[in-house]
């Protein structure tokens, strides 16, 4: 057996290792579940959860103490928004409170008595919003809708008053709003949640399943496993590089399947934003994969038992996600933690990837990140190789 391998050159050894690793992956249920199963299921389940993309028709109650044409119009404007729906019109605030406590409505708008009279006679009037802020998105929607409705309604009132003073409609419009601020939300104008979170999340899933899967298949020096080397002890030094690259090659092949699925198909099925040139995306993902795989191989050497990979690494998955700045802006994370987070390739790749795919920039705009990823891959490769050389030498001297 050994004779056959002894005659092989580096390339042949590498090919042998690619084959060996792939065989190991496909004959291990746990590893298949993590490396392929999880990758197939997660994006779909998450995408279904986020399928509606935006929150629509959140129930609110309007307490109308005025009962006039103006107050009804105001209520109607709230109801007409896509985000809110006026499901109840309680008679007073205490009735509204009961509805609120039993979770029937998530906010209350109070229109005071004398609303129309004040509006028509040119007095300032108030509208009160009682919004539940314990769920952040619900609060944000209620506040934004009411602010918009109010701005339009007030604008109309103001225009009418200028016109009463003899200004033309056009003039009145300009006078009541001297600077016309126009917001243009670029790249994700609908503010859709799925389109925002899924593309980056898929990369984090690719990273975490790779790290855990590689560890699960066994550290190369784990005591519960036979040596992964094909050559006898004294010749192993020349096998280290082919071994490392063979192993890496096997995981690159697996990842290409996952990329085809997560980065191409899932995007297509759920119509996530895709403004990028696919070649640019692959150019960015290649160093990312290398960095993740080398890191995974390096880390796997630390685990004594194969299941330890799960024990030690699963808890990092949500943390890795938050550190990419998707669900939580990087500007709010302490600096030392931002520096530390650079250990994870996902921290670097996700913002760059989103710029490519959602904003549609070219590869030139992400060259800093591209460079960082290659650097990362290089560092992890060198560290892992050095560690392997040490171990092999130690084993030979024994």
């Amino acid at each position, binding site marked *: 057996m050994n004779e056959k391998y002894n005659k092989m050159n580096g390339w042949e050894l590498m090919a042998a290792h690619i084959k060996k690793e792939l065989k190991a992956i496909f004959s291990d249920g746990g590893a298949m579940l993590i490396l392929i199963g999880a990758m197939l299921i*997660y994006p779909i389940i998450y995408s279904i959860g986020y399928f509606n993309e935006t929150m629509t028709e959140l129930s609110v109650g309007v307490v109308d103490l005025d009962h006039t044409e103006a107050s009804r119009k105001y209520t109607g404007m709230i109801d007409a928004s896509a985000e809110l729906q006026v499901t109840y019109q309680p008679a007073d605030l205490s009735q509204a409170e009961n509805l609120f406590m039993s979770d029937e409505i998530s906010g209350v708008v109070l229109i005071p008595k004398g609303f129309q009279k004040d509006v028509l006679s040119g007095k300032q009037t108030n509208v009160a919003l009682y*919004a539940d802020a314990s769920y*952040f998105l619900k609060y944000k929607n209620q506040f934004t809708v009411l602010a918009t409705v109010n701005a339009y309604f007030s604008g109309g009132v103001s225009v009418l008053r200028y016109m009463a003073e003899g200004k033309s409609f056009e003039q009145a419009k300009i006078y009541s709003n001297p600077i016309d601020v*126009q917001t243009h939300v*670029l790249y994700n104008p609908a503010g859709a949640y799925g389109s925002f979170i899924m593309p980056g999340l898929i990369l984090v899933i690719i990273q975490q399943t790779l790290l855990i899967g590689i560890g699960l298949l066994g550290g190369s020096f784990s005591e519960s496993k036979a040596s992964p080397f094909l050559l006898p002890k004294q010749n192993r030094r020349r096998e280290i590089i082919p071994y490392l690259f063979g192993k890496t090659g096997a995981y690159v092949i697996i990842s290409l399947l996952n990329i085809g699925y997560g980065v191409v198909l899932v995007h297509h099925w759920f119509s996530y934003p895709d403004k990028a040139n696919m070649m640019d995306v692959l150019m960015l993902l290649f160093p990312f994969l290398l960095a993740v795989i080398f890191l995974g191989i390096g880390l796997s050497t630390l685990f004594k038992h194969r299941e330890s990979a*799960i024990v*030690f690494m699963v*808890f990092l998955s949500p943390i890795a996600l938050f550190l990419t700045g998707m669900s939580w802006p990087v500007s709010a994370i302490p600096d030392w933690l931002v520096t530390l987070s650079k250990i994870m390739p996902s921290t670097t790749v996700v913002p760059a990837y989103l710029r490519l795919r959602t904003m549609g920039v070219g590869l030139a705009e992400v060259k800093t990140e591209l460079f960082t990823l290659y650097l990362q891959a290089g560092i992890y490769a060198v560290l892992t190789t050095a560690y392997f050389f040490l171990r092999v030498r130690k084993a030979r001297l024994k």
Partner: protein
Amino acid sequence: MKEERKHPLLSVIDREAERIKHNPAYRFLLFGGPLIGILLLFFIFRQGAVKELPLAVVDQDHSSLSVKIINALNSSPDVEVVFKVPDLFLAKEMLEKGQVDAVVFIPENLEKSVFKGTKAELPVYVNGTNVLVSGLIQRSVLTTLRTVSGGIQLKKLMLTGKNKQEAMTRVLPINIQKHVLFNPYTNYSYFLNSAMLYVMLYLFVLLSSIYTLGNELKRGTGHSLLETSNNSVRLAVAGKMFSYTIIFSGFAMLINFLLYKMEGMPLNGSYWVIFVGQFITIITYQLMGLIFVGVTINLRLALSLASAYSMMGITFSGLTLPLEAMPKIAQWFAALFPFTWWEKIMISQSLRGAPVKDALPYICYILIFQLVALAFLKVYKRYLENPKYWGKK
């Protein structure tokens, strides 16, 4: 054999302590892991509200109005003007490189048009890639610029001879009084932080339970375990779980301390409900270890499935996107995670200050998971006894 035998429950507890002492993986699951996870998350969300998002301003007007706009933007709490560039192309490049999150374009002759009373547009371009960031920027920039605009309107009205009161009414005919209920700081951090810290805790509870239950099968030590527990699988499981329950309850109190004492999160309801709720949820996740081990009879597969299950629990707890916004099928799916119900207890008690009776149904739902798990006790005993099920990788 000793003359006075210890109670089998105590013997199992001792036996488990020995195992914890000799395997670093146990120690990581029990001490290092939860501690690192909880502290990292705590520091990520520490600062509370997000602040100072970078803006670029393209100033082609070079007027006192443009200076005023820039100053107003700088003094608003959420954004900061980090670049002033001469043209829109440069600004666009910065937006694409991710150096700024929004661009405010001040066109030539803005000041002139404003004071002459002709149409004056002020475009703002916001990067919508991150929904959270773009929401904050829109709110902050729009409020600031509307205030500037309102100020100009006010000044002009007063020049035409109106008094301040009259002018103010014209600028702002209807005022919104905001009453923010239950989370007066509108702090997203309280919300995310409280949920994520418990995600971390329950993840380790579940994994450690599977690890220790599954290891008995993997190592084929089932007979020794049953011998120690006097052949009672109930005592065996209770004894194995005991030290974990105590230690994880300790971590739950650490989380309580971090949230309520360090972060100053409001506690409007009953602390006892929260305490009892987290205790019950810990035991539930421990017992659910039996389900995972019972179904797979394979330590590694059980751990993989449990990780997947825990990670999905985050999405479907309504933490990131409220459950009401999800399709019906996703809402049903969400019921399959004790964490969903725990999250409801936490928010209703801590932030909303709901009456105690509101928490009772949620606690009952969590207890159902325990019942299901207890049904697996017999199965587990069969595995412990029969070497056929041992040594599975």
